[in-house]
């Protein structure tokens, strides 16, 4: 490694990437925690969130110059697209997963893959396959702290993802509804007997996960544009992050996401893995984790019931 400031630069880049992975991974892990199934349409919810953010932002901003007002427009667009994605996520659950709740475990999984294809194809049909640029709502010139460069976009990602993770953690640990979610994930039947409306909890889980995905989608779009298949790779990577952290475990998803971001960045920068093979790092880590600690870093090994 070159120098200490080079290290900090990579660390910062990895942390930003990891923050985004973590936001997406939370959606996978929350749904898994409660329904024991992987929502493979999660990446496409992210994509729809990015599109709605883009359309709303372009519609509202007019000729506004960079400044606080434009930032407000950006955050409003983000907030509305979070709501849109939340509603979408809840609707998908009601239409495509809920009727299959008592079916074999494979059925909702296949249904999810179907939903994911439908969404990305609908997006391609209505909005075209061409990537669309999502303009920065600010001048993205990097600040220099010593030799370390940090862009306003990176600051935005760090602040937004950190705030959302803290808020989510507090919500789950401290509120009545959070307690209902934890109880439901531990034992659905008993939760219902305690007076918890399990369907309401499941809907809320999808809503929160989808809103987080929309946020991540918009944050990604600022750098990588918006296109119908943008959710696929982001979704897969975040899924890996969730598994690495221990699927079903909220803190695990956060740690897994950040870890994966750091590993990817340092893998390219330090180990000299070619940029083109960057994506293999995540899946290499997945295979390694599955071999060594299949339950993930914070997951609990499930004992077979006798």
């Amino acid at each position, binding site marked *: 490694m070159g120098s200490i400031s080079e290290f900090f630069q990579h660390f910062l880049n990895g942390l930003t990437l990891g923050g985004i992975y973590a936001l997406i991974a939370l959606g996978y892990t929350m749904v898994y925690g409660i329904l024991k199934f992987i929502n493979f349409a999660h990446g496409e919810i992210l994509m729809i969130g990015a599109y709605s953010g883009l359309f709303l932002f372009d519609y509202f901003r007019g000729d506004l110059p960079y400044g606080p007002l434009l930032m407000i427009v950006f955050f409003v667009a983000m907030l509305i697209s979070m709501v849109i994605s939340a509603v979408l996520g809840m609707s998908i659950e009601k239409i495509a997963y809920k009727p299959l709740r008592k079916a074999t475990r494979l059925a909702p999984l296949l249904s999810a893959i179907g939903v994911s294809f439908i969404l990305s194809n609908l997006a391609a049909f209505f909005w075209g396959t061409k990537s669309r640029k999502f303009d920065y709502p600010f001048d993205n010139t990097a600040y220099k702290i010593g030799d370390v460069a940090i862009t306003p976009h990176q600051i935005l990602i760090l602040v937004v993802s950190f705030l959302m993770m803290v808020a989510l953690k507090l919500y789950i640990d401290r*509120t009545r509804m959070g307690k209902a979610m934890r109880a439901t994930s531990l034992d659905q039947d008993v939760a219902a007997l305690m007076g918890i409306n399990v369907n309401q909890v499941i809907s809320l889980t999808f809503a929160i996960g989808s809103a987080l995905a929309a946020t991540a989608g918009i944050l990604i779009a600022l750098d990588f544009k918006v296109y119908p298949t943008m959710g696929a790779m982001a979704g897969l990577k975040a899924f890996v992050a969730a598994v690495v952290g221990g699927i079903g475990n909220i803190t695990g998803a956060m740690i897994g996401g950040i870890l994966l971001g750091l590993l990817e960045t340092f893998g390219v920068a330090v180990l000299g893995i070619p940029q083109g093979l960057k994506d293999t790092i995540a899946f290499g880590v997945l295979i390694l984790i599955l071999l060594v600690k299949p339950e993930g870093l914070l997951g609990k090994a499930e004992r077979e019931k006798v």
Partner: protein
Amino acid sequence: MSLLYTTQLTRAFGGVIAVSDVDFAVEKHSITGLIGPNGAGKTTLFNNITGMDVPTSGKVFFKDEEITGMPAHSISRLGIARTFQNIRLFKEMSVLENVMIGRHFKTGKSMTSGRLLNAVRSYISMKGEEKAIYDTSREWLEFFNLDKFRNESARNLPYGSQRELEIARAMATEPELLFLDEPAAGMNPQETDRLMATIRRIREQGVTVLLIEHDMKLVMNICEQITVLNYGKKIASGNPLEIRENPLVIEAYLGKEE
């Protein structure tokens, strides 16, 4: 007056009829026993009354209101609570949290209304509703002599205490009717004696108790009314003395005398 009754309750799983045409009643303020050989349909009957399973036909009435097929959380809020044969605690949560959960959702209030502000407030200092829930939960733990364990993880409790905690959690939902599914299973004689005393104390709180139990000493000792199931059918119902002398019951348990 019957607090709970079923009319021709039937539950079939494919060709197997687990509960067949059962007319069954629990009198208010009673301790009622539900007995029968293994596989007689006792737990299925519990499940069909508490909303964990939906009957194939027949009806369930609680406080003269039909509750057949209602979701479990609604039935819980109406005032029926239960425990399980294989203890089902929230093992990852603390003892206190297990009991508090029983209190949190007993109101029909939407689970999200005005909660965020409340949460922030309770984060800073416990006040109002949250404090009341905490206090009552502590009282229930005292009732079962479990308060000393309150910060332990539920999984670390000794077996007998786990059974008691499950009852405490059920009581925290403030039921009018409490179902106990084999509460004495796996208990030693001392623990069983304590359990009998506890069940009587629960009834003194104005709660009606219905229990499934194989320990005949316990059943005959504390139940005023007993219903016997065999192969999904009700074969007898009456007070302990009547049940003890009922030839059908003796046959079900011991086989027919030649």
